[in-house]
């Protein structure tokens, strides 16, 4: 249809690419949206972004399915009786004013704002709103937060997150870190991994109880009893110190610490053969510089921080600090820095709700009713709060409990700025801009709503900004001196939007010179299993599902899990040997019970798991959210036990023990893989030994 007014750069039939930022996870990849005739059709990587490097993962591509999701909330909803009913924005905002405005008499301590991880100027605005209320209750909550890893890094390196140089390492030893699939910055790390695998080809060794996608790409995958990774690392350290080179450079503390971890003891605790410990120490000694990293399966235990610290100490011993473990750039904008979120934060809030402290709660970017274990009683506690508001794209489990549900723009309709917590080089501020007009006239920008809320009390201070865009523009233009941009403000703003990123050179954070080993007190006795709950439960993180917030995308549901190739479902991974001893076949329904509940889920026989462990992927089991997610699979968050990491108070995700009972029911597991899981002697994927390959001669 011909338009009335000219739209710049729009030629019907031709695609235009606009730079923006992906908000599907916390990596803040710079992306480009392909726009045609005013609609965004596809997401692609923005080559200007050092984080994405012009690439994109499947989760990022699904941003368009969030945008055009048939189950999107298109108008404000208000709780009437027990159900949510449509209401006008005027009424909704009037209700907000009535309950939380200046005349409501609400006290700052009676108000809580729960958000997911946040960074950039929206975070600043949210902070300003809380300040205007006199509230300190900003609870940043991520179900899968990096808080334990940060605490361990802080102990060993003095920084939250060092910069990891895969490209420089000859050997990477990863303890349960699925850096290719989940975690800090999967797209960036995948590119680094590719460099690492080019000549001279680095070796990857993965030690974890359940094979992750990264484990599947390892040269050697070593199964281990969950929670004993730290002991294993100290066992390796013990052997390393037998090499003369290291015993000279390492402090007495460490020598004393690792003394008692001789191979036989360690092998007894970890279930890994003692030969392998010596072998790994030998490899680490031989291939320098190396890089030792730890991940979710190490951190999710009572002694998670110590477990991870014990592993990070290997980098200290091997002299990797300064070579493959480096400081990230120190952001010159502390107010924009990411709040990464933690479980402890939500627990405090939940306790407050239980005690009846809060009169009003706002929830944005988090779905705690879905992602909290049932023992917390979050849903019941939330119901005790008189006024609850959710800001969402689609009604999820948490929004169903709220009194007011406000539909906000999706990431492709809104403005924003983001700073990722893992920065590969310098500091990259990634800019988010609308890739298309809003799809539904009755949705609003989260930034605009926040601005309205701040204006309730600080109208004068914010009167110059009619909307979030103008606020963001003023704020972004303030960055101009930091990047030595000399042209006008207007140019800077449009230049920034069209490039999608602002690179700021900043000095590196300093890695502490020394560290204390005092805190390390890992269990040395053999982990004795509870006879009632003999299995370790591994709630595994799927790379396109994470905590389940994007489960309502058809593409993601139909994208096979890389290792099991299962689609549209949940499953329990069980080792074939264990399954055989229990008479379990693929597709048999299992009852998996912890002290806090039971899940009924199909068995999938999976060789890449410790025989004493059972793994159920996270992200499924929604009771709400929409047609593609509702009623699909089970939610392992629900049955987690109240086991907490002792230093940080985080939920110990891997600390739950379960029992497994076979039921009489069975059903086909819907998966992409064929009836056989090997190549049957055909030359489909050929494997070449690394010493035969001559990668350096390749183009």
């Amino acid at each position, binding site marked *: 249809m*011909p338009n009335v007014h000219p739209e710049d750069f729009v030629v019907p039939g031709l695609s235009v690419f606009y730079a923006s930022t992906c908000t599907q996870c916390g990596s803040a990849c710079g992306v480009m949206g392909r726009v045609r005739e005013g609609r965004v059709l596809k997401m692609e990587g923005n080559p200007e972004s050092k984080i994405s490097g012009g690439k994109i993962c499947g989760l990022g591509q699904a941003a368009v399915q969030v945008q055009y999701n048939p189950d999107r909330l298109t108008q404000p909803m208000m709780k009437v009786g027990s159900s949510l009913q449509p209401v006008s924005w005027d009424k909704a905002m009037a209700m907000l004013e009535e309950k939380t405005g200046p005349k409501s008499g609400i006290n700052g301590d009676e108000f809580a704002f729960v958000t997911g991880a946040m960074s950039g100027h929206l975070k600043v605005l949210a902070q300003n709103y809380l300040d205007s209320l006199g509230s300190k209750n900003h609870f940043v909550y991520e179900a899968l937060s990096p808080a334990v890893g940060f605490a361990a890094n802080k102990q060993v390196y003095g920084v939250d997150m060092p910069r990891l140089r895969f490209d420089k390492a000859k050997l990477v030893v990863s303890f349960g870190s699925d850096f290719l699939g989940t975690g800090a910055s999967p797209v960036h790390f995948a590119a680094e991994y590719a460099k690492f695998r080019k000549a001279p080809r680095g070796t990857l060794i993965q030690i974890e109880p359940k094979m992750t996608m990264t484990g599947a790409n390892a040269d050697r995958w070593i199964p281990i009893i969950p929670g004993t990774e730290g002991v294993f690392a100290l066992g390796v350290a013990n052997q390393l110190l037998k090499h003369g080179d290291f015993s000279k450079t390492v402090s007495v503390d460490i020598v004393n610490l690792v003394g008692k971890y001789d191979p036989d003891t360690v092998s007894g605790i970890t279930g890994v053969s003692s030969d392998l410990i010596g072998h790994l120490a030998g490899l680490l000694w031989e291939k320098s510089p190396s890089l030792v990293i730890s991940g979710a399966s190490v951190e999710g235990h009572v002694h998670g921080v110590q477990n991870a610290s014990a592993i990070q100490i290997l980098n200290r011993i091997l002299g990797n600090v300064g070579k493959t473990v480096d400081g990230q750039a120190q952001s010159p904008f502390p107010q924009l820095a990411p709040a990464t979120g933690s479980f402890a934060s939500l627990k405090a809030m939940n306790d407050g709700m239980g005690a009846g402290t809060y009169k009003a709660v706002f929830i944005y970017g988090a779905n705690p009713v879905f992602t909290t274990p049932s023992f917390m009683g979050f849903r019941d506690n939330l119901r005790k709060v008189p006024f609850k508001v959710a800001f969402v794209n689609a009604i999820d489990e948490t929004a169903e409990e709220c009194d007011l549900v406000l539909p906000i723009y999706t990431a492709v309709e809104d403005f924003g700025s983001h700073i990722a917590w893992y920065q590969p080089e310098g500091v990259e501020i990634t800019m988010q801009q609308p890739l298309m007009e809003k799809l539904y006239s009755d949705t609003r920008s989260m930034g605009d709503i926040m601005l309205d809320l701040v204006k309730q009390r600080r109208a004068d201070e914010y009167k110059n900004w009619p909307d979030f865009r103008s606020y963001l523009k003023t704020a972004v233009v303030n960055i101009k001196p930091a990047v030595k941009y000399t042209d006008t403000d207007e140019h800077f703003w449009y230049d920034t939007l069209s490039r999608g990123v602002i690179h700021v050179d900043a000095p590196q954070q300093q890695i502490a010179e020394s560290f204390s080993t005092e805190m390390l007190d890992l269990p040395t006795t053999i982990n004795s299993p509870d006879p009632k709950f003999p299995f370790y439960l591994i709630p595994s993180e799927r790379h396109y599902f994470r905590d389940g917030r994007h489960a309502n995308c058809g593409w993601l549901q139909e994208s096979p899990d890389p290792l099991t190739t299962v689609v549209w479902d949940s499953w329990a991974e069980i080792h074939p040997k264990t399954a055989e001893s229990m008479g379990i076949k693929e597709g048999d329904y299992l009852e998996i019970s912890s002290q806090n509940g039971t899940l009924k889920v199909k068995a999938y026989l999976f060789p890449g798991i410790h025989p004493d462990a059972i793994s159920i992927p996270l992200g499924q089991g929604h009771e709400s959210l929409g047609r593609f997610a509702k009623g699909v699979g089970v939610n392992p968050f629900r049955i987690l036990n109240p086991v907490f990491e002792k230093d940080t108070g985080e939920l110990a995700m891997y600390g739950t023990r379960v029992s497994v009972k076979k039921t009489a029911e069975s059903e086909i597991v819907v998966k992409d893989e064929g009836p056989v899981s090997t190549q049957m002697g055909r030359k489909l994927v050929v494997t070449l030994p690394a010493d035969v390959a001559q990668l350096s001669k390749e183009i």
Partner: protein
Amino acid sequence: MIHRLLAALCFAFLFGAAAGAEPFVQGGPIGSQTPDGYNALGPVVKQPIEFPHYRHARDMGINCMYCHTGARRGYVSVIPRIDKCIGCHQNIESVRNKPRIKKLFEYWDKKEPIPWKKVNDLPDYVRFNHERHIQRFYFRQNRPVREVCGYCHGDVANMTVDRRVKALSMGWCISCHQKDHKESDTNLKTSHGPGECWQCHK
């Protein structure tokens, strides 16, 4: 059976060749062919404004691409936006009160797009690339624009409201693609259009 089929086919070919002389035959729906296969006058399309192509293209001598700006750049030739019309017509006082212009300004004042109807429509599985044809014959070979556009659209410059005059069927496209066309007036080398399915079918 086979023989009877073959006979029917032969008859169809013969009939097709014999009937080729007739200039314009009322065509059926888009894509249907008249016996000669090529010239098929489309139905009269009633447009919201009876746009006089002859006034613009013939009397004023305006290049087709002044309004159909997409033709040289992409797949779609582009129906102009109203601001394009207004851009000229706000300065042409002499015709300001003619009924059609008044109607145009009504749309403009209401900020409503004009609901033009499509005249030369192709099935959804065909992608016709305007750009290549314009670049090849108008820019490279310097042929007159009315002739180049006219290969497919006929003599629009003598029409009021546009009307389809060619079959826009595959056989008709191919018949032209199979011809050898001179590269340019100075380069006498000839080439013909691409002839594989995926060039146009998507």
